[in-house]
């Protein structure tokens, strides 16, 4: 008995030295976000920046931001997404990624994500996308299904509703560069129905204002004739769709359409929150996402 206890004790001591636990990578502060960026170049020469956070040996989760946002968009949600290796990518043209003259459609974005995963040696990941990033995530799940485990679509729609497209076409082509982050349009673009951390949103809006013209216009031109409802039937990844009912960009009709096209997905609506509900209530959003992503 004593011999067994000793050998078990020795075994425990041996094991604790044999395999050191991988360290967690902390979520950078707002001030440190840019310095935390790393870069890779994909096989076809697109430079992409990203921020890596969380459990280094956890299941990978790719985080894809929205139109004119950047990886910082995930800074308040990331600390709450438990037990995973989080990789917040800057889509081409955004954040620290290269901004070529062309092209900014869902085909290019999904192609880049596939190529990014290749160069990072990530075979498969859970993918969480917001707005444009959610459309990219859905395109990836449809056209590169081998890349996607579980799919989370935040503030998504299968096409840009006419009212939203009209508003963007009324404003985006008239933008003067450099864009004033405190202009009427930029304040409207970053408006939210409930308060959002001031430090975060001031920085995010400033970085959005620094996005170059070819990206502002490139995305708008690419999205205008895009409707991905035909590829929803190709999505086999288990899917969670979350929407804030005060979303001024994607209306209730767009969500009804989505439910018809993705009947097997799980749906969550946040009452009183807007397009950027995970900035308004990161804890609420994290609870839903953590509950959905299987350990």
């Amino acid at each position: 008995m004593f011999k067994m206890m000793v050998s078990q004790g020795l075994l425990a001591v041996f094991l604790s030295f044999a395999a050191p636990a991988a360290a967690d990578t902390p979520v950078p502060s707002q001030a440190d976000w840019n310095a935390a960026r790393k870069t890779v170049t994909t096989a076809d020469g697109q430079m992409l920046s990203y921020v890596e956070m969380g459990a280094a040996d956890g299941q990978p989760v790719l985080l894809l931001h929205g139109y004119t946002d950047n990886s910082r968009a995930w800074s308040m949600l990331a600390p709450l997404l438990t037990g995973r290796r989080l990789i917040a990518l800057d889509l081409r043209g955004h954040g620290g990624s290269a901004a070529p003259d062309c092209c900014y459609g869902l085909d290019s974005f999904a192609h880049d994500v596939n190529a990014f995963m290749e160069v990072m040696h990530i075979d498969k990941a859970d993918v969480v996308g917001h707005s444009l990033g959610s459309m990219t995530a859905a395109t990836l799940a449809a056209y590169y299904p081998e890349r996607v485990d579980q799919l989370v679509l935040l503030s998504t729609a299968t096409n840009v509703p006419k009212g939203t497209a009209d508003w963007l076409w009324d404003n985006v082509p008239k933008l003067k560069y450099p864009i004033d982050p405190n202009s009427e349009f930029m304040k409207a673009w970053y408006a939210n129905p409930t308060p959002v951390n001031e430090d975060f949103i001031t920085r995010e809006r400033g970085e959005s204002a620094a996005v170059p013209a070819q990206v502002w216009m490139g995305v708008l031109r690419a999205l205008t004739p895009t409707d991905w409802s035909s590829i929803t039937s190709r999505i086999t990844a288990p899917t969670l769709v979350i929407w804030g009912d005060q979303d001024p960009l994607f209306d209730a009709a767009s969500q009804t359409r989505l439910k018809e096209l993705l009947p097997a997905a799980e749906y969550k609506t946040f009452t009183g929150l807007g397009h950027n509900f995970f900035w308004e209530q990161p804890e609420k959003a994290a609870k839903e996402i953590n509950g959905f992503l299987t350990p």
Partner: protein
Amino acid sequence: MVVAQSQPAATGIDTLAHDVNGFMEALGIDRADVVGHSLGSMTAAALAGFYPERVDRLALLSTAVSFPKEAIDWLWDNVPNLSHPLDPNSEFMLAWFSNPTPMEEDFLTRDRAESASVAAPVWMGVLKAFTVLDWSLLATRITAPTLVMWADQDALFGAASQSRVREVLPAAQYETFPGLGHNFIWEQPMKAAKVINRFLAR
């Protein structure tokens, strides 16, 4: 282990129109009349909608706002299964180039062979782009005088598809060719030219 495939990343009409804009820039052509057939017509529409300063008059031949389900399903049933290099005389290629009425054989044989030599990534890239295409919102931005020509035996874009075009381009002129197909400009070039010349005449 996933093998990376070499595919052109961007094959949507926004990209193709961007190319045309750049092409005109490179050739020093400020403005032009633009005549497009099928994918070319959708590209022409995107050019007119996004780069209106480039387009005088616009002629859209065998166009559609989005791909009808039957057409896109047929393409998905066939195109991913094609083995390259393609045989220009395979069942699929003969179907792809079939027409309700006869045409110049020399031209058709050469065109079909050149189509067969288009690389797999382009076949797939354009198919994927077609699948997520609906340019009805773009149509409202087109101000160029527009002619829409369609033939009623078009096996890809049927009558319902053409009705949708009429809804989104109410101010366009319409010309329909009875008994001809998707490639009516090959079946009856003189008939097509007469209409186009009249439209482009100053």
